[in-house]
């Protein structure tokens, strides 16, 4: 029965064809392996975070370093109101899973979970050398506990409020300013544009102290106003991005609208904005994450007012309180990065676009 597979093999049969085929496979194969190794190391912290966030944190933390890498729990036995760890005990009849009752340096007492009424069994050897009975285990306990203890409901509400309002204001102000830069001639334009670029690069530390004093003098400390109000005045990065896009729209389109009697604002709203939607979304995304991740100003202005804390402040605070429980810390990590990652997956294209426009085209 000469099957199709046989004839395929025949056609590959000649050495030259095989070699060619192999070469075609090896190049991509090697590259894939190399890129795979690098990306695995690169994303290792994320894998650690996920496995730690969903494990039985208390048991694995108490066990210290000798724990499985996957989310797991260890078996234990309820005995006379106490929770005893079950260890793998080597005996003459093979390895037994026994619960450790009393610890001793040279010998320890164990209970056989299968027959607890039989009483303690004495075993010679150091219990410290014994392994616990781990089994894969997935739980949301750390997530719910850290959500409750850090009050993430509140943090999310605060961060969303600050970020969304800022994005709204900044889109309006930056679009208007970008339109001015892209379409109008006026004296000093070059110098002003140079200043705009400089504000991206120069350290803002030089404005921190007077601004902080000013905000608290006018009664804005421990409120969101110092975080939101600056968005009304545009920000350099977003202005730059939008300007770049507006300049790519043919000027004839504005002129046609102007001839039809539209003023500059009408032109901006009805001609420019619909044509720069990708840049609009990119600028919104950049500003959203800038605000979402901002640490310094919330730290300065909201210090001591915990019910107003944003996510970075809450995270920094919990880093101290969750000291000994990696599971809780990693669970809060999972909570904190989920929304940014979802937004990134949806708007991926615009992030890439924004980066290219601000960093490559000039």
């Amino acid at each position: 029965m000469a099957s199709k597979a046989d004839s395929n093999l025949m056609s590959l049969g000649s050495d030259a064809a095989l070699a060619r085929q192999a070469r075609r496979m090896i190049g991509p194969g090697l590259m894939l392996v190399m890129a795979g190794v690098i990306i695995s190391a690169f994303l290792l912290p994320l894998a650690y975070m996920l496995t730690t966030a969903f494990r039985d944190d208390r048991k694995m933390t108490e066990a210290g370093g000798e724990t499985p890498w996957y989310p797991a729990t260890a078996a234990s036995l309820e005995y006379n109101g106490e929770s005893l760890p079950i260890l793998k005990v080597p005996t003459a009849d093979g390895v037994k899973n026994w619960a450790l009752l009393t610890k001793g340096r040279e010998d320890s007492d164990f209970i056989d979970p299968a027959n607890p009424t039989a009483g303690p069994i004495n075993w010679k050897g150091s219990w410290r050398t014994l392994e616990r009975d781990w089994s894969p285990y997935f739980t949301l306990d750390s997530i719910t506990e850290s959500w409750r203890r850090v009050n993430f409901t509140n943090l999310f509400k605060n961060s969303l409020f600050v970020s969304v309002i800022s994005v709204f204001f900044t889109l309006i102000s930056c679009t208007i300013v970008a339109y001015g830069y892209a379409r109008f001639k006026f004296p000093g334009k070059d110098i002003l544009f140079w200043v705009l670029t400089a504000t991206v690069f120069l350290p803002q530390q030089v404005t921190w102290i007077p601004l902080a004093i000013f905000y608290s003098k006018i009664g804005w400390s421990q409120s969101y106003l110092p975080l939101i109000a600056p968005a009304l005045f545009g920000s350099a990065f977003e202005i730059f991005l939008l300007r770049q896009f507006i300049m790519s729209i043919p000027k004839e389109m504005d002129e046609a609208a102007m001839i039809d009697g539209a003023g500059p604002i009408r032109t901006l709203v009805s001609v420019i904005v619909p044509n720069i939607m990708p840049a609009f979304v990119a600028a919104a995304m950049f500003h959203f994450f800038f605000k979402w991740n901002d640490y310094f100003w919330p730290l300065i202005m909201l210090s001591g007012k915990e019910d107003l804390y944003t996510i970075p402040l809450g995270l920094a605070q919990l880093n101290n309180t969750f000291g000994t429980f990696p599971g809780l810390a990693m669970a809060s990590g999972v909570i904190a990065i989920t929304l940014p990652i979802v937004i990134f997956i949806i708007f991926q294209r615009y992030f890439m676009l924004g980066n290219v426009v601000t960093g490559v085209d000039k």
Partner: protein
Amino acid sequence: MATLTSRISKALPKSRAQKREARLGLTMLAPWLVGLLFLWILPMGISLYFSFTNYDPVKADQIKFIGFDNFVRIFTDEVAIWSGFVTFRFMFIYVPFSVIMPLLIALMITNKTLPIRGVFRFLFYLPSIIPGIAATLIFLRVFNVQTGWVNRILGGIGIEGPSWFWDANWVTITLVILEFWFIGAGMIQYIAALQNVPLEMYEAAKVDGAGPFRRFFQITLPLISSVIFYRLVFALIFAMQYFGNAMLVGGLSGNPDRNTLFYNVYLYRAGWTLNEMGYASALAWFLFILAGAVTIGLFASQKKWVFYATGD
């Protein structure tokens, strides 16, 4: 006479239109100009004034002009000098790293033999959107000496890992490793620049017998030098302003043993925990001048080595 009047009458409407355009343009810029005045120029002026005083917000009525004392103090304050050293040491490792690493990743991702390039591009960008504080939180655990995966993996292949964030000699490098997570923007910019290099140039070089290394150094590098320049400026400025992650790792005292006491952490400490806002303003201005000088120097050096495509 006739020509003159006609010239004027021609010029007038045009200049009126120009005036109108200028007025409109500046009106459009108004939000940003107001912001520039109130969020930059005025605060800068005020902090410059503070930097010549002993201003302390708690004892605001005792403010006194002390000349250049604050600036002299920066150079005699052993802790300030140390914080400058900590910052410079970080910069020294971070800057070359953050210019080169995204380029290497971008070269790998643009290599046509690599399958599923889009997936890799997505995955290498992914951590860039994670809040810095959250990333630090994760890295503090992954690099934990006993329970973290890094040392467990190293132990598995027989290497005893260092104490990373908790070792004075390793903490700077560990912070740079943490920054590796944020190569996304640089990588995307390099990818775009690499894809802009005209293929014909490679073909021509191949015909001339140039090997892959010569092609890279003589064609690719010059053609992406504008992105290299941009990344370099950004990296330098970023390193000078390093703050949040350092605070989370080392706190105000800059653990371990003051090795994360970055310049900005010290500035924050002087201004907000010790209330020495006059001195903190001087520290801020010193940083500003330094950053300004570096940026201007880099922009001036551009002509020598950065290649901008002309034409279009």
